[in-house]
């Protein structure tokens, strides 16, 4: 399946992280919050007026702006399927 960025997912979509292309500070923060390649995530909702995204990774819900989310490559669906 071709990989897309996290920013293009729709609410309710479940995807698997393929890779993270962020500068070091953001990369480290994402790692600490549980974002790793191979990890499954869910886009819970998008805020109005092209606001931030709510993303569930493991047991943590975080909000990401478009700019940050577009640095995370994902492929739709659960890993291995």
């Amino acid at each position, binding site marked *: 399946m071709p990989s897309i960025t996290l920013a293009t997912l729709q609410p309710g979509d479940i995807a698997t992280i393929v890779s993270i292309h962020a500068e070091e500070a953001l990369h480290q923060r994402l790692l600490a919050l*549980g974002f790793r390649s191979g990890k499954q995530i869910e886009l819970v*909702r998008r805020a109005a007026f092209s606001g931030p995204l709510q993303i569930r990774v493991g047991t943590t819900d*975080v909000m990401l702006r478009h700019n940050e989310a577009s640095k995370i490559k994902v492929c739709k669906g659960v890993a291995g399927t």
Partner: protein
Amino acid sequence: MKRIALLGMPNTGKSTLFNRMTGGAARVGNWPGITVELLSGKILLGADMVEIIDLPGIYDLHGFSDDEQVVRHFLHDNVPDLALVILNTTQIERQMSLLLQLKQLNMNLVVLLNMADEAKKFGISVDTAKMSALLEMPIFLLSAKYGSGYTEALQAITKALRYPTPGMAEQLRSQLEIDEHIETEMARVLKHSVQVPAQMSDNLTEKLDRAMLHPWLGLPIFFAVMYLLFQGIFFFGQPLQTGVATFFTWLREAMLVPLLGGAPQIVQGLLLDGIYNGVGTVAAFIPIIILFFLFMALVEDSGYLSRAAFLMDALMARLGLDGRGFVMMLMGFGCNVPALMGTRVMRSRAMRLLTMLVIPFSLCSARLQVFVFIAAALFSPKAAPVVLFTLYLFSFAAAILTALIFKHRFKNNEPFVLELPPYRFPTLRQMVLRGWLEVRHFLRRATKFIVAGVVLVWLLTHLPQSAAPASADTLAGMIGGALHPIFAPLGINEQLTIALIFGFVAKEIVIGALAVIYGLSGDSLSSAIGQQLDWVQAYSFMLFTLLYTPCLATIATLQNESKQLKFTALSLGWSLALAWLASFAFYQAARALGY
């Protein structure tokens, strides 16, 4: 004295545990190697007094954020006798990484798995005995909020403190770079000691979020919550403030005036109108600050503040701010001082400073008093509300303009990723403690400054002794005269200029000052002002009052919170410049149009 450092990620209930341990007897202090102040408290453990330090929450020991650097520098220069690591049990899967990083530093560690109550609800089970054995350190489950498991943890801490403090070897620092080891170690420990259900969901949070973060309903709900909060603070705050003021007047008339009856006029004035009124000014803030932080603790600890950030982010991101800044700005419409203190939730310094630059333009309740009085004196009952409304618009416009102008100077360079924690009920204890700590912080830092300011203004308006108070012959009058060329193009006369000098102390006293300056009060004062000024001059005066420095307490708070004289001066200078420019533009334009 032995030192215990509290370490953990954000949202682990670290501060709740700190408050439970120190019982609110904490104070802020400076430490070698770092520039920010940290909360610390001394408690009796076993037979010895120990000092507990609350370090900022960090995600990663090697990170680049301000907080992560603070923690690194603190540990480097002040190796604690014991590091108490607090992990959120519901997120143990990812928080273990921080623990393993700390373990490599070879410090004395005790691990507390907090929010055990929540983890149990979610079906997460932890085998602490097994985890302890695997990691070779004492590990305890507890709930800092409700206190379960707390006694056992304290005993373990007391015991661990008996071990000698290991020195942190310099070569360990370089070893810190090797993170791959941590990943495999983390997987090993988690596999053997933790069970997390495959599908984890917090039904309550899910349901609440469906309404609170609804694409259309979210914002109306947000504004309704803010409105209630605002009304709540002032519903309870106004009578309390009046009560404090009544008490101070009573004490003055019943005790101090008779006591000082024999003293010379100038001494009486200095003590009563200077120092005593200064103390009264400070005291008037106490109920508002306590209430503000009672409610703020509710909003913050319940998890709603990060939802507000989510809802307002689309707009605020364009201004270089975040949604939490918007909440503080709204609260600033009540009183700027606690709103400025509240910006502490923002962990990026640049974003926090930008928010602090914006907040003083919020039309606070003290300024509203001035505007209501002047609008009533100069405008018809029909026009007055419209005038007030335009002032609110100017207030928002000034805030937005300031953010747009300065957002590049205070550019946030920290990654913006905010956690949305599950909704929680804060305990009353947490709320009261927060209010109490904040008010003590304010009193300790701002009292001297505010009293000194009030005394100075009293001296300016009463010296030389031969002159009538606040008249043109006093120092203030002379300053007013000297400033006249600056204020004349704004349509602000000398009497009003003196009132603006008073307004520098607090907007609450502007009307009182006008009464002294004109020698009139109440209706006769408002009709005198109504006859002397036309509406263009009055509006220009209100515009200036809206935009220039709110009050001494705000300046004191700006300085306390930023710890940077340059920043305070920038805020002061910018608001004065903006006030002058806006009034000038308005006055000259109105006159040019023939009004």
